[in-house]
């Protein structure tokens, strides 16, 4: 009763007269349902993505123009040449291998550097340096990926890689991988740093009291305590690397081949989609539909990785409070 009286008083103060209970409930309720429907929209987005990709992919696999396409030849075929030759081949493995190669190079570049920078930021840096470094990382994070693609094509390849070995062509997996690594560096760094800083100070103090050096504290106490967050950061960054499009479209080349050679040009799943949607293929043809099958594969891979990341974060979190 007192609560109702107070609420009425507040309404009188606000608009000069009390609001009827029915009107109030109606307004509050409709706002709530409006917001609920917005929330529902985000779920609907996922559903529509899956529906569109699945239906187009189904169309690709049940096509009558090209009888050899089956789940087996798609997922286990080692040749991808939809636009070349008389007999187009649709085996997705070369595209997956291209993506994996670029992602691996990016991971080798970004994960150690990112983690070390995060440790520096969280354990060593003074407040001033931290602010400065965070600003640098924020700028790096905001640079559009097409800029990194341009950087890979016009700087990394001619000035860093080609003087080192003449095997590198204009387009190669290495330059794209390095550029993707630079792109994911801020993600690795800021997410790992969040995880490191969430480790309570008492753990560090305890380790120092036992005579640990700063290295011991960082590497044997703080990093293991924050491991779930660090792994989740790595997974998220790798997901971004797998889905990265503009860098590989510019710098990795356009030849799908099953190779682990970083000097060779490769085509990733995303780069193939760019090639198709830029209009190299007729809009109703089998090549066009194949890009949906590739997109669906890509979507499943990234969805799966993000999901694993969420599980790692939730299940293996060390709770200290």
């Amino acid at each position, binding site marked *: 009763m007192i609560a109702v009286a107070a609420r009425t008083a507040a309404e009188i103060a606000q608009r000069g007269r009390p609001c009827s209970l029915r009107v109030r409930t109606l307004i509050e309720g409709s706002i709530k349902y*409006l917001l609920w429907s917005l929330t529902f929209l985000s779920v609907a987005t996922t559903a529509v993505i899956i529906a*569109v990709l699945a239906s187009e992919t189904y169309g690709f696999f049940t096509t009558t123009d090209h009888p050899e396409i089956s789940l087996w030849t798609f997922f286990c075929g080692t040749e991808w040449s939809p636009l070349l030759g008389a007999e187009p081949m649709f085996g997705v493995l070369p595209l997956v291998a291209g993506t994996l190669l670029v992602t691996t190079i990016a991971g080798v570049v970004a994960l150690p*550097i990112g983690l070390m920078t995060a440790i520096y930021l969280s354990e060593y840096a003074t407040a001033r340096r931290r602010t400065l470094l965070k600003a640098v990382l924020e700028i790096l994070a905001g640079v559009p990926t*097409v800029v990194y693609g341009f950087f890979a094509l016009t700087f990394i390849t001619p000035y860093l890689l080609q003087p080192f070995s003449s095997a590198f062509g204009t387009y190669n997996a290495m330059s794209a991988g390095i550029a993707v690594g*630079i792109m994911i560096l801020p993600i690795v760094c800021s997410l790992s740093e969040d995880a490191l800083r969430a480790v309570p100070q008492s753990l560090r103090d305890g380790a120092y009291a036992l005579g640990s050096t700063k*290295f011991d504290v960082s590497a044997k106490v703080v990093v293991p305590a924050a491991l779930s967050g660090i792994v989740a950061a790595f997974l998220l960054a790798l997901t971004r690397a797998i889905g990265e499009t503009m860098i590989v479209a510019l710098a990795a080349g356009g030849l799908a081949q099953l190779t682990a050679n970083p000097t060779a040009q490769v085509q990733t799943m995303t780069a193939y989609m760019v090639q198709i949607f830029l209009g190299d293929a007729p809009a109703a043809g089998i090549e066009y539909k194949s890009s949906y099958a590739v997109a669906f594969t890509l979507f499943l891979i990234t969805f799966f990785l993000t999901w694993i990341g969420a599980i790692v974060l939730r299940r293996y979190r060390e709770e200290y409070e």
Partner: protein
Amino acid sequence: MMGGKTIATTRRLMSNRLFLYGCLTATSIAMLVLGVLMISIALEGWSSVSWRFLDSFASRKAAQAGIKAPLVGSLWVCAICALVALPMGIGTAIYLEEFAKRSRLKHLIQLNISNLSGVPSIVYGILALAAFVRFFGVSTGDAPWSIGDPESLFFVQFPFGPSVLAGGLTLALVVLPIMIIASQEAFRAVPQSLRQGALALGSTPWQVIWRVSFPAALPTIMTGAILAMSRAIGEAAPLLVIGGFLLVFQTPTNLMSDFTVLPLQIFNWAGRPQADFHKLAAAAIIVQLVVLLFFNSIAIIIRQKLQRPLQS
């Protein structure tokens, strides 16, 4: 032992020192990369930045090409994206943080949103191509159904086609998960005591949100919004999928106009073999980075001026 150090201690101190050097090297690499990136682009593109470059349309001749269409197109697309993604993101965050009770459903929605933020942007392009550009193929073959005069500002047609509206909606899809997550964090950071105080004074739940939580969360939300917008303005892949045009010779006049954006123009120029066009690409990148820097500095100013601690 007295005065000296055991071998084990020496080794530990050495690894301690090496580790610090390792961390410093890693950190300086990050700084160095940014420096090299900026300097190499500035050297390549600076000579091409001019008023004429900003004020002319695309051309097949490098000396006459400019970025008027992509620059204005980027602003249109970004504005549409903001008008759609900000209210939707904030609304969803309000529902999840202020209304939804802890339940399995809420957990699933949350998981779904974080999954959506990991979906590659090019996949959103495919979704937008089906949903906005073609309306799921509802009217294939026929001329699009339209309202209003094609010259007027309020001209709309269905399906939207590869128009500036479709582009803005596409980017809104891409940044919506980012926007939701950022706003949620902002609402979560508002101390519970503020809400309780308002409730004790007799506010209804919506009054608490609108007059207490939302204003308190606003600076953080705005920072998140600006970061989301700077992501949107740099995004090229989804717009490439929905058919953003590479050569556009006019600025948008209404929501159904053809458009291109800066990152697409950069992609187009960077992908050509001629060095002249690489110079143009670098110049366009400089313009793009200046726009982004402007966005980021607004975010920093907001963070420093408006963000006051809510808990003493």
